[in-house]
């Protein structure tokens, strides 16, 4: 994506809704990044819609939405396992079925899980594998370089394959693990969407930072694109300190996917 930035810009207020696309952002008890994710949707030109995890009529709540984001944080305090309790929230059943079910066949609702959201998607078996504690055992927070390996998913079409982007990473249980057969399958089917570049920050198998389901509508990634969407508040970049907005491409991608579908 282009990273051209205006020299003078007022980023303090959200822009107008450009596409009419409605993107749900789920809040669990302990979710931290729902507001940032909603803001990223708004800055990309979509309309964020707040979703509460305990929504019992999930089907109705999702019926007016074009995509759903499960943001990061520490839902249920990471009790039991990260994402393990959230996975059984009433709204999750509706999200699982709207996403096309666990076999990932068919083109379902685009769903993005970021960090704890990625953990929830693996616990829900919408994505294979699981996350365990970082190999170095410490919480880590840094600007992380990633390589986009697949731009055919609903959430990555505005990138090119091999493009390197930098977004913040912050996690404790970020080590992606799966058995060798699953890893080979993911690689073979091009379902590794993002890979860590330069340094593997948590010991993830094969430097995997993000993956997709077979249909490409469900994507999970450990780093946080929603924290790199606004000049002045992102990672340092070639444009200057905290000027990185590489994460915005994730959110413009899904809006483009939605627009493409309805045309």
């Amino acid at each position, binding site marked *: 994506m282009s990273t051209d930035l205006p020299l003078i810009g007022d980023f303090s207020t959200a822009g107008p809704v450009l596409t009419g696309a409605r993107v749900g952002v789920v809040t669990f008890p302990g979710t931290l990044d729902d507001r940032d994710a909603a803001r990223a949707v708004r800055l990309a030109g979509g309309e964020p819609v707040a979703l509460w995890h305990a929504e019992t009529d999930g089907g109705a709540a999702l019926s007016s939405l074009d995509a759903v984001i499960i943001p990061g944080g520490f839902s249920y305090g990471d009790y*039991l396992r990260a994402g*393990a309790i959230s996975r059984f929230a009433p709204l999750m059943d509706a999200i699982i079925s709207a996403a096309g079910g666990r076999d990932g066949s068919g083109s379902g609702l685009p769903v993005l899980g970021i960090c704890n959201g990625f953990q929830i998607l693996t616990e829900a078996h919408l994505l*294979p594998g699981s996350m*365990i*504690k970082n190999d170095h055992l410490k919480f880590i927070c840094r600007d992380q370089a990633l390589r986009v390996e697949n731009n055919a998913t609903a959430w990555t079409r505005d990138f090119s394959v091999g493009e390197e982007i930098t977004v913040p990473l912050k996690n404790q249980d970020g080590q992606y693990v799966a058995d060798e057969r699953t890893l080979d399958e993911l690689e073979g089917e091009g379902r590794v969407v993002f890979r860590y570049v330069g340094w593997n920050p948590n*010991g993830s198998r094969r430097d995997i930072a993000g993956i997709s389901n077979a249909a490409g509508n469900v994507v999970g990634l450990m780093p946080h694109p929603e924290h790199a969407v606004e000049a002045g508040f992102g990672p340092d970049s070639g444009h200057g300190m905290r000027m990185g907005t590489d994460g915005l491409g994730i959110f413009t991608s899904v809006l483009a996917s939605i627009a493409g579908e309805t045309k």
Partner: protein
Amino acid sequence: MPTIVVDVMPKPEILDPQGKAIAGALPRLGFTGFAAVRQGKRFELTVDGEVTDEVLAHAREAAEQLLSNPVIEDVVNVEVLPDAAGHPAEGPTA
């Protein structure tokens, strides 16, 4: 009230970073005889009533569906805890 114990361990092929860190700390206290440590979880399910075969089956199902993640963990033990006086538990055993 009777209690059912469920033990969950990380799968043998999954690296256990916490166990590794504990193994690294043991020699610093002079405990040099241990080659490795793996850390698991123990759950105690207090049963409201008698431990029937059905209750025990539910405990096993809960262990597989919620208490463990089959991708990274194994349920290694489900058993009825003996009562405080040390008497063997009533009802079926695992």
